């Protein structure tokens, strides 16, 4: 996270840390057995280890966190899987669901983020702000060991198209399934992938206890600290609900 500061788990209780040899990413807990993340973060041979309720990414601290046993990864059918990460230029449909073997025990540091509603109000537009968080790169480090978070504004898609074009001659595709957010110096970065762009629920009026929904997922960007591209979750609500409904199992196999 660029332009952010240290966060506590209770401030972003939906934040899930995905970690294995090839993965250092985030995810958003959306139900007791389901974690929403970026497809490119879990597009590997096996689901990565997952942790909830810890602001620290240190191994010693993770041992005290709630370990989530992945059961299965559901990549969005539109996601072009299996490409070499360095060669990928198409991040369309960068969304996946990680199914857990056991339900997550909710508490002060662990809790799901809401899914977006069906109305247009749940597709953020320029001027809205969102909270991003993760253990990705910062201005000073390639990876953060303590969770960091920042507030980013949603900006017109053109900003990201321009940024992409300037960086790589327009080979990156920016689609309607993506959100553009950030501002100079405030952005997500490598290692934050899959984490939520959390936006206040426009239909929840309790200012003392604001409610957040997952508007976007950290997806890609060319240069950290400019603008970042986020998967527009509202476009995938049906797929998310259908996948969870069809595959929800109560018993551990």
């Amino acid at each position, binding site marked *: 996270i660029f332009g952010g*500061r240290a*966060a*506590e788990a*209770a*401030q*972003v*209780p*939906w934040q899930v840390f995905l970690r294995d040899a090839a993965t250092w990413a985030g995810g958003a807990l*959306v*139900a*007791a057995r389901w974690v929403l993340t970026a497809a490119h973060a879990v597009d590997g041979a096996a689901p990565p280890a997952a942790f909830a309720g810890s602001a620290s990414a240190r191994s010693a601290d993770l041992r005290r966190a709630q370990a989530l046993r992945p059961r299965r990864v559901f990549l969005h059918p539109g996601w072009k899987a299996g490409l070499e990460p360095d060669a990928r230029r198409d991040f369309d449909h960068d969304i996946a669901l990680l199914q857990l073997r056991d339900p*997550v025990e*909710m*508490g*002060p*540091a*662990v*809790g*799901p*983020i*809401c*899914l977006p509603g069906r109305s247009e109000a749940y597709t953020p537009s320029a001027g*809205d*702000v969102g*909270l991003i968080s993760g253990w990705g790169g910062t201005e000073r480090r390639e990876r953060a060991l303590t969770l960091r*978070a*920042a*507030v980013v504004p949603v900006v017109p898609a053109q900003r990201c198209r321009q940024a992409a074009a300037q960086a790589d001659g327009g080979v990156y595709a920016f689609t309607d399934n993506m959100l553009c957010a950030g501002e100079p110096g405030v952005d997500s970065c490598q290692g934050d992938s899959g984490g939520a762009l*959390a936006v*206040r*629920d426009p239909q*929840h009026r309790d200012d003392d*206890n*604001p*409610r*957040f*929904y997952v508007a976007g997922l950290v997806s890609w960007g060319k240069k950290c600290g400019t603008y970042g591209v986020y998967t527009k979750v509202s476009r995938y609500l049906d797929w998310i609900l259908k996948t969870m409904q069809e595959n929800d199992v109560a018993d551990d196999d």
Partner: protein
Amino acid sequence: GLPMYGEILSPNYPQAYPNEVDTSWHIEVPEGFGVHLYFTHLDLELSENCEYDFVQILSGGIQEGKLCGQRPRKSADSPIVAEFRVPYNKLQVTFKSDFSNEERFTGFAAYYVAVDVDECTEFLDVPCSHFCNNFIGGYFCSCPPEYFLYDDMRNCGVNCTGDVFTALEGEITSPNYPSTYPENSRCEYRIELEEGFQVVVTMRREDFDVEPADADGRCQDNLVFVSRKQQYGPYCGHGFPGPLVIETGSNTLDVIFQTDLTGESKGWKLRYHGDPIPCPKDVKANSIWEPEKAKYVFKDVVKISCVDGFEIVQGSVGSTFFYSSCQSDGRWSSPDLVCQRTRDCGPPAPLEHGRVAEPEDTSFGAVARYSCVEPYYSMEPDGAGLYRCSGNGSWVNEVLGAELPECVPVCGVPRKPWAAAQQR
């Protein structure tokens, strides 16, 4: 084969009897006869109380006589010097002499014959209850008109047994009432009504006159009622001593009147009628009887329903009502069935990510409240946490029925606010 007569002579008679004689003769004649024993000659040593030599006559262990010395003839025209008559058919004669007789004594000669006994007069015990008739070698009893001789051939009574009364009402009297009842009789009457009716006996005090109790309080003549359930009496005396109305609770009643040999009383008269046998109005707790009546009698049927929360358990099956009928014996069918609390709902099932305030009492009407682990979980549907123990033994919610609510994670609400997350 028993002799009707015989002779008894002392040893060596008519020569002198020896010293130290001890001889006995056992005389036995046929039953129904007595023995006439007479001596025609007697010549024994004389001693005070016949201590030395004597002839002794015993009957049934009792000494009839003891003779010694010489006896003269009792009259000129008879050879008899001594004689004995016993009304029994057995007699023992014993002769004894001591060790020294200084003179010569010739002993005795005696004869016996079987003689008829008048059993009707010669014994202290009266052999017949009414008339006694003697004949040679025996006797027989006979009875007045309308009496008959019992199998013991000694006692007479009247034949007053066997009447069965089946009409729903009627009157019964002792024989000859209001004239004196016969002695030495046993009269057994039976009142036998249709099932479901009980015999009710009504007696007026003045209609009862039976020989009063003896000094020991025993009613020698007495009237007894015996139903299937209990016995009433024995009653005796002037004026009926029992309850004037007896509800027997039974459709049959035996009326037994017994008299002894003595007494002259006029007897008794009773009335009876049949009354439908009532069943007790025994409404048990937590039940409702339909129809409700002041009195239930034979063939009445009631529906017994349990109030809410109670049930009747028959085997492993529970129901909320049953039918019971008043039976002919005055008892309800299925008397053991009672309304008991419905089976306990038991502890409420646990709720994942929730709690339940478990009541101490988990029977019908008890309340269990579920809640979710707040603020991390909320209940769905909202506010569906109240469950009541229902009559069928399960916890029931007004909305969900027997299903449990769900505790679902509360989404999107951080427990600590992100202060920076304010729209600028």
